[in-house]
């Protein structure tokens, strides 16, 4: 690896770290219950919840650490944390 003077690195390069591997519990979103409020998106510490064209929210499991904040804060109880089986 070439070192740059002053330790300069490129912006937003942490995306190579797939922190989803840290997860023990996985958030599962229920669109039937979702009120499209965006609270989960605002509070996600990984900023990994995005919005689709129908305003439903989806976590990016590549980065979701399974903290459970979204499920705790969702006013519609639309997110359930489930134990994640891994191979």
């Amino acid at each position: 690896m070439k070192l740059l003077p002053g330790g300069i690195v490129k912006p937003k390069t942490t995306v190579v770290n797939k922190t989803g591997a840290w997860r023990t519990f996985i958030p599962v979103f229920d669109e039937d219950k979702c009120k499209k409020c965006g609270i989960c998106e605002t509070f996600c510490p990984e900023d990994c919840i995005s919005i689709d064209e129908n305003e439903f929210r989806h976590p990016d499991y590549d980065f979701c650490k399974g903290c459970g904040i979204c499920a705790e804060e969702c006013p519609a109880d639309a997110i359930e944390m489930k134990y994640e089986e891994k191979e």
Partner: protein
Amino acid sequence: MSLFAQGHTACAGCGMPIAVKLVLEGSGENSIVVSPTGCLEVTSTRYPQSAWGVPWIHSLFENAAAVASGIETALKVKGKKVNVLVIGGDGATVDIGVRALSGMFERGHNVTYICYDNEAYMNTGVQRSGSTPYGASATTSPAGKLSFGEDRPKKDIPAIAAAHGIPYVATASVGYPKDIVKKVKKAQEIVGPKYIQILTPCPTGWRFDGSKTIKLAKLAVETALFPVYEIENGEITKVKKIKERKPVEEYLKLQGRFKHLFKKNKDRIEVIQKMADSNAEKFGLDG
């Protein structure tokens, strides 16, 4: 994606990255950020990667405000208008960097200094800082046979900042995201030194389940243990009112760092309740 990328390595449920995302939303792309050593620096810039979507520089632990002062002065000489911010931890701010911070205030630099307050030196293993609250057990103020934990009250840095006569001082909590964005935007419209302290719960150091971060960030405010207010040119101009103030136990009992208080230090909980009462009175929080 915000200006703070995924793949940072803060613990699951950490309040700090939520605050950083919101601060950058308020400050926008035209910003330069300085961060002293601490969890934010370590978890956002594991070499050779960076989570930052704006120019960012790592200072020493103790001189973030001095580095920001230099950047602001250089930009002024070059005739460029850029928002210069510091985003640093409580240890870096209220203890080791307080001299540089005071100098920055005194010289009147146009810098927004954000302290993310997780109430201890988390990155090195939960040592107490000047910002650690009374009664909390930290590794250098451990609860035990002869100790009920931290025996000094939280240092009132917002009041110290305001005493410098700077135009804008504010506190905020990561439980109230819109308030953070609003305050950062407001700060960027004011010329001169600005200081904003944001409470960011730390599941690892406070010992609670990471899913409860926002709940605790709100409870700290709802109990009046962490009053949310603005001070402009030395005057309190706005406070976040509390409709029905909650007893401090509701906040304390959810955290391992206060667990010992419920066993044989019940009288200390009364002391903490008195601190909350006096905050409520001082800032007129009830109502």
